[in-house]
């Protein structure tokens, strides 16, 4: 190993540039081997990035028939993601791939699409899933991220809907990587931060969905590591979280940004949060956090 490093350092001392044109040639070749992230508006980039990452995991995947999550193999999992991406596409007026949507509900659409994809090869499904995702990305260039829509019955602004798709794609990419014995690197810090911000702002909604009555209180949420930040989150709906600026709070929670996202995504049941203040509230919020996660 020491000689390797010396040898490479020596080569760097006397570099020999390859013929010109190699860079452009490489980018063309590479795009044919694995599609780059779809070009899209900045607020949809975390989604485009997670789609490309799942495609990368797919490229190294070998155990195509092994159940990954919910008893689904890779083809069924991709189809589930495509089903939910398609519901969002329909809600923003983008083309929907596959048979027409019979019912605007995630599991019903998943079953319909899985039935449709069963007769197709995994590579065909990969292509359809990716086409649907890229179509959605492109369609968002003219969308207003603040407009409320309710694909599958969950009302959120378009900007948050696409971050939700990014988060779910990330979680299932992680599931697939674990199943394949691959190590999935984290999203780049900016994209991770956007998803962490969504998770932070969803906390009051997960509490409400779990039947918690929290009154007029607020918490401080500090997420550490890449993509982290410091949020002030009122627990009453309709008062969106924002950057923490020294406000009085009932509770301070501290967690790793990636782990926090995974808890909201229904992964990491054993992960605890560092809490200071109302510890009973912390336990309630922690228990409620995965309320929006589902298959």
């Amino acid at each position, binding site marked *: *190993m*020491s*000689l*390797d*490093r*010396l*040898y*490479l*350092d*020596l*080569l*760097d*001392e*006397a*570099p*020999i*540039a*390859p*013929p010109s044109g*190699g*860079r452009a*040639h*490489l*980018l063309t*070749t*590479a*795009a044919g*081997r*694995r*599609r*780059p*992230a779809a070009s899209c508006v900045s607020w949809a980039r975390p989604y*485009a*990035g*997670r*789609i*490309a*990452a799942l*495609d*990368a*995991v797919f*490229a*190294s995947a*070998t155990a195509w028939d092994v159940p990954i999550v919910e008893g689904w193999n890779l083809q069924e999992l991709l189809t589930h993601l495509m089903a939910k991406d398609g519901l969002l596409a329909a809600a923003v007026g983008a083309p929907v791939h596959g048979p027409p949507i019979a019912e605007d509900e995630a599991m019903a659409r998943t079953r319909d699409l899985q039935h449709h994809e069963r007769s197709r090869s995994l590579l065909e499904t990969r292509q359809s899933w990716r086409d649907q995702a890229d179509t959605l990305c492109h369609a968002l260039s003219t969308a207003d991220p603040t407009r409320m829509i309710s694909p599958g019955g969950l009302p959120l602004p378009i900007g948050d809907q696409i971050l939700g798709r990014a988060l779910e794609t990330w979680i299932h990419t992680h599931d697939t*990587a674990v199943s394949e014995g*691959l*190590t*999935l*690197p*984290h*999203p*780049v810090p900016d*994209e991770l931060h956007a998803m962490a911000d969504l998770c932070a702002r969803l906390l009051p909604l997960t509490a409400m969905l779990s039947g918690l009555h929290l009154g007029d209180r607020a918490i401080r949420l500090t997420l550490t590591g890449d993509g982290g930040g410091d949020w002030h989150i009122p627990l009453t709906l309709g008062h969106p979280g924002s950057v923490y600026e020294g406000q009085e709070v009932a509770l301070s929670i501290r967690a790793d940004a990636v782990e926090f996202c995974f808890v909201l995504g229904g992964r990491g049941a054993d992960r605890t949060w560092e809490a200071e203040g109302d510890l009973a509230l912390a336990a309630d919020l922690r228990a409620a956090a995965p309320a929006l996660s589902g298959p």
Partner: protein
Amino acid sequence: MDDHLFHRRIVSGDELALGELYDHFSALLYGLALRVTRDRAAAEDITQEVFATFWERPLGFDPGRGSLRTWLATIAHRRAVDHVRSEERRRVGALGPRLFERPADLEEGVVAADEIVRVREAVRGLPDGLRQVIELAYYGGRTYREVAVEIGVPEGTAKSRLRLALRRLAETLNEGAL
């Protein structure tokens, strides 16, 4: 050069990151492949293929196990050796893309056997003061700071001696190499 960040960008499908990696490492990989194959067209193909493979299956690289530079160089070296071995076919195209890239083997290395001999000889031929810093830094795995302390010179002096030694070695190695 932040290997972790580049890896994350490549996995996220960021083409700009691939272009930056090419700018950063293509001369190293091309030079490495050229030394082994002595064939410019083959070295160019190998360079392209190493980057394209990394782009297609970036999870084959694990930044926790070694540097991206060494990993790319190991694959370039392996492909260059493959090329030399199959040279009787005289068709670079026959190399084609590998379907499954074995993970870079830490034992495998990036230096051809005859090059190892030449590097070791070149190190032995350095003046004592320069040979000492190379041996400490590379064979002994010391940092600049540790090298400086060990030979009793300021850190800046150790650094410039190391640069000078590397340049001398590179010149020796290049004489008649290509």
